[in-house]
């Protein structure tokens, strides 16, 4: 099944560093993954784990220190030609977390949605631009009349729809959704999630869905990568990851998701991940495919351990708070 899928985006040994030589901080360290055409790839981790940085380096906002990003067979990281840069800007778009902060308060919706068209001269005439904007607004469930209004006249859910509409006018192939629903109210989250999946079907889109909430990612993503302190520790298909988590960090993360089921929830034991349970000083960990399509970050010792018991490292329950 895997082989039939076409790889759209390849991230190879990506490393992103911030700061100058003396105070260097490695935000993303040796991360590799593929995203297939038409799928939703979920990236989960705590705040500060580097998930947003990965998204931002794909869209060329953050500079890559080493490693490369390949889109449709072409390298898009580092120095690239102007025409490719323009091409990538069109094809890869981003939806931001907070719709209250990501829209220009002083611009009308009409301008916000068509800003990408203006910048890249993607439209032939004023009439064409208007039609594109109207269609994009209709596609996200807003009315074309809203084009003449300002962002403050809309609710959070509607604003996020505007944020989605402005990516659609570019006719993108690949959308990076960075926590698109975490700033929204519970009742509106479902609407935006539904909208994202219906747009995916209609426009044949590929998503990179970045979130900290595993339960949301499980619902929307086909495959999930779990990231901890700049490294992907486990990557698998969504259901496989939930049914058979191997890495202790994934286990801790899964145990922390609150379930809407009081009796299960009250008897649940929360596992706490302690990174000192690995002994990586001599035996360096590698990112290895342990079962088909299921990758983990582990060293030789741990892999042998897994092969024997079907379990990587037992978490010491006494450490739990």
């Amino acid at each position: 099944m895997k082989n039939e899928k076409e790889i759209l985006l390849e991230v190879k040994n990506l490393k992103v560093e911030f700061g100058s030589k003396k105070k260097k901080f490695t935000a993303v360290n040796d991360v590799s993954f593929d995203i297939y055409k038409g799928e939703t790839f979920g990236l989960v981790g705590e705040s500060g784990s580097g998930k947003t940085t990965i998204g931002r380096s794909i869209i060329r906002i953050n500079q890559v220190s080493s490693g490369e990003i390949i889109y449709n067979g072409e390298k898009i990281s580092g120095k690239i030609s102007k025409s490719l840069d323009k091409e990538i800007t069109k094809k890869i778009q981003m939806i931001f977390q907070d719709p209250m902060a990501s829209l220009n308060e002083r611009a009308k919706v009409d301008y916000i949605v068509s800003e990408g068209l203006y910048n890249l001269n993607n439209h032939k005439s004023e009439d064409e631009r208007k039609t594109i904007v109207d269609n994009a607004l209709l596609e996200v469930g807003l009315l074309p009349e809203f084009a003449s209004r300002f962002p403050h006249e809309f609710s959070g859910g509607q604003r996020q729809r505007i944020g989605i509409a402005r990516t659609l006018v570019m006719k993108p192939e690949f959308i990076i959704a960075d926590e698109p629903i975490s700033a929204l109210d519970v009742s509106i989250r479902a609407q935006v999630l539904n909208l994202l999946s219906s747009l995916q079907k209609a426009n044949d889109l590929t998503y990179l869905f970045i979130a900290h909430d595993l339960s949301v990612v499980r619902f929307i993503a086909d495959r999930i990568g779990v990231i901890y302190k700049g490294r992907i520790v486990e990557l698998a298909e969504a259901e496989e990851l939930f049914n058979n988590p191997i890495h202790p960090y994934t286990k801790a993360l899964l145990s922390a998701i609150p379930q809407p089921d009081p009796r299960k929830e009250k008897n649940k034991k929360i596992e706490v991940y302690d990174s000192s349970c690995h002994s990586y000083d001599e035996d360096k960990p590698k990112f290895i495919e342990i079962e088909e399509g299921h990758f983990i970050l582990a060293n030789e010792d741990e892999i042998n351990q897994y092969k024997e018991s079907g379990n990587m490292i037992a978490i010491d329950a006494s450490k739990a708070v």
Partner: protein
Amino acid sequence: MMSYLDVKINKEVVLCVNDLKVNFKLRGQVLNAIRGISLDLYKGESLAIVGESGSGKSVFTKTFMGLLESNGYIDSGSIMYSGKDLAKFKVAKDWRGIRGKEIAMVSQDPMTSLNPLKIIGKQVQEGIELHQNLKGAQAKKLAIKLLEDVGISDPEKRYYQYPHEFSGGMRQRVVIAIAIGCNPKILICDEPTTALDVTMQAQILDLLKNIQKEYNLTIIYITHDLGVVAKVADRVGVMYAGDIVEIGLADEIFYNAKHPYTWALLSSLPQLGIKGEDLYSIKGTPINLFKEIKGDAFAPRNPRALKIDFELTPPYFEVSKTHKAKTWLLDTRAPKVEYPKALKKLFDEWEGYRNEK
């Protein structure tokens, strides 16, 4: 496992709200934020209040501490606490014996609720000195003990550190320490974990549960996250448009909800969704609270609404001794309406649970 049922047996009411109405004056109009809530809070329980933003859950609990914004006022009703009616309190002096001392609060964002220019220890000590009549070394000793109780390691050293040296989860622990340092009877936790990571969230909730036992607290949780509710609450009140539309034990709300709004809230959770299918989403927008509401406030957004829902406000119908809901669907004359399919798995457990009993 059913420890919270013990609480129910010796019901001692610590706080009694009766037909509370809160209004706000806004641009010459009057907004009815709380529309006649009655609620008993039992000693030692944890009650969760859920609802979407704007449903009035924060406003409701703010009235217990006299923290309404200046354009808000209590229109009618009473809040009885140890023989006093908090709704009648007018000046700050009245509140001095209540705020912190009897009812304390843990707010949402630990990044903004601490003073950045003061060391952590002093901030914890402040409340202790004010409310427990301790001074100097004694107060400091207690402050350090509190920091240790909330899970801050090396408290003697941390006592002298500033908020910016703490992570988000640690700051929230400090905020909790400040709240319990006043030795309150009731603790109001307003979205205590929304600003935190999932892993940190689980730890803070566990901490609150332990603290509750240790300090004999009654806790009111305000949250929109039903996962959090399932974890911590003994009882759950569901708020919509300034009213509690359904209230019951956590089990009753999750496995046997009766109000269409509770159904909608539960079934829009991605945890219950089926992959590849659309999630249930609540249509429309919350009702306008500037206008008088006729009938059931949720009716315009409810695809299962009956004709009477638009005409007459439903009273509470009792489902069990501990569970009641404001919906005409519970009336004996109402047609049988099926709950949403997404809830079947959850509701099936109720059957098993009932058979157990």
